[in-house]
């Protein structure tokens, strides 16, 4: 099974490719990106200077050695212990190099903002709207940041760990 092979000391080709890709980013952006967490499931690095996230995203997409042209997924995440919210982006070079990497960006829990990459990958527009809807972080420079799944006048951000559902909605009792 592939899953069990991933635990052998030998690195899989996927992790080697992720390391090589991270190396290119690290050389270009230095301290703005963290070390690579080369775990066998989902190798990722974190953007430490989040103001540069859009530049890094554009670099990831357009650098000839990287060409991460496909954003598979963008998930919002809550880190209550660190008092932070964040996003995890799963990127892939579709039809070009074929390598994959995940990128994390974090912001403050209250009033935090992450630069939007909706202009880099158009698919991010709706994913970011969903993350905003569920976690409440803002995406600066997003073309149309509104709630997407919940109603416009819903209170609170449902996927936060400390979320408490509102008692009534337009006079209707909300089941808990």
């Amino acid at each position, binding site marked *: *099974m*592939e*899953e*069990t092979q991933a*635990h052998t000391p030998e690195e899989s080709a996927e992790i080697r490719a992720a390391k090589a890709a991270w190396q290119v980013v690290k050389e270009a952006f230095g301290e703005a990106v963290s070390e690579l967490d080369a*775990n066998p*499931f*989902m190798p*990722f690095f974190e953007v430490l200077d989040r103001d540069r996230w859009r530049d890094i995203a554009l670099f990831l997409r357009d650098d000839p050695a990287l060409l991460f*042209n*496909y*954003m*598979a*997924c963008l*998930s*919002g*995440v*809550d880190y209550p212990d660190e008092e932070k919210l964040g996003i*995890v982006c*799963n990127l892939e070079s*579709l*039809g070009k190099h*074929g390598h994959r990497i*995940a990128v994390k960006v974090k912001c403050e829990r209250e009033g935090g903002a992450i630069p939007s990459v909706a202009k880099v*990958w*158009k*698919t991010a*527009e*709706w*994913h970011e709207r969903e993350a905003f809807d*569920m976690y409440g972080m803002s995406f600066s420079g997003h073309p149309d940041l509104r*709630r*997407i*799944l*919940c*109603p416009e006048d819903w209170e609170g951000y*449902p*996927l936060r760990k400390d979320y408490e559902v509102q008692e009534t909605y337009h006079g209707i009792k909300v089941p808990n």
Partner: protein
Amino acid sequence: MQELGTSEHSSLRVTPQGKDRVLIEKDLSSEEMVLNMGPQHPSTHGVLRLECKTDGEVVIEAEPYLGYLHRCFEKYAEKVDYPAVVPFVDRMDYLASMNNDLAYCITVEKLLDIEIPRRVEFIRVLVSELNRIASHLVAIGTYAIDLGAFTPFLFCFRDREHILGLLEWASGARMLYNYILIGGVAEDLPEGFMERTREFVTYFRPKAVELQKLLTENEIFVKRTKGVGMMPADVAINYGWSGPMLRGSGVDWDLRKIDGYSVYPELDFKVCLPDGKLSDIGDSLSRHLVRAMEMEESLSIIEQCLDMMPREDGFNPRAAIPKRIRPKAGEVYGRAENPRGELGFYIQSDGKSTSPLRCKARSSCFVNLSAMKELSMGQLIPDLVAIIGSIDIVLGEVDR
């Protein structure tokens, strides 16, 4: 004659003629009109609302509004344990529950150290491919009915019923199966299931050709779909399209080949791409053609599974299921090729709890639909129906 209304655009005048007042149009109004399509419109395939800004018959922009079916599956997933998420996953894309289950289970299995029995892998692929055909039949049938062809719809639903019967026999449910479990499947295939599946394959092959002749080569159908809703390959990738949508734009990309999960690497099948003879690559017809071709590929995969599946007496498909599912700490993004594209799950485990810390579903329909605004620009209203149908959305998965 008296002027009606006070706005300077008002163009209506009233002429008193006996008891009746006749409205005369002075000059045609040329303002944009906002037209709501849905949430109960039949061609939106569920509860989707499109707010269309129209200029006469031309759509300037169509903005989708979703969330009518939102159940916050992701919040539920954080409250229940790993195996209990499977029934929720079933209810996302309710036309392809087996494929959803497979995508979720292989994602969780990545975090667990378990070996899946070979027979289980073949059963999983077999039922998933059966479900893929059933799902494509609904997609094609409802697409035909959107464009005014009623008969193909009946043909599709007649044949789909055979598949639902087979899957009901295996799992006990018609649509929401809860059959593929983490580490195994719920039950072994019933006695005689494989023979009946073979009969179905023999029965369905000519029916697929018949459907091809009836619908795909129909001149009206071709005229309604060819060149409508064009999507170039690079824009499709930028929008995160996947599955038949991306292949319709001519990109050779199938996760069954790329990721090679389960036993797909051992099976012989090809990635279906439009050849550009009947359709323009990237239009609605291409996407329909890909689905039609994929049904035949799935039939071939099913036959191979039936031939290659190891037989064991007294086989226990639940043998590899762990007593307690508590994955090690970590994050994983797993995915599978669903009938509608890439269904991905991002799962975070803290290593202590028996329920996921975070479980995000990357819905293929949600992502495919996000290009609607761009696709609809400058199209005619009847073409809008042809475009939505070709995206093949299931609102249960869009809204989750």
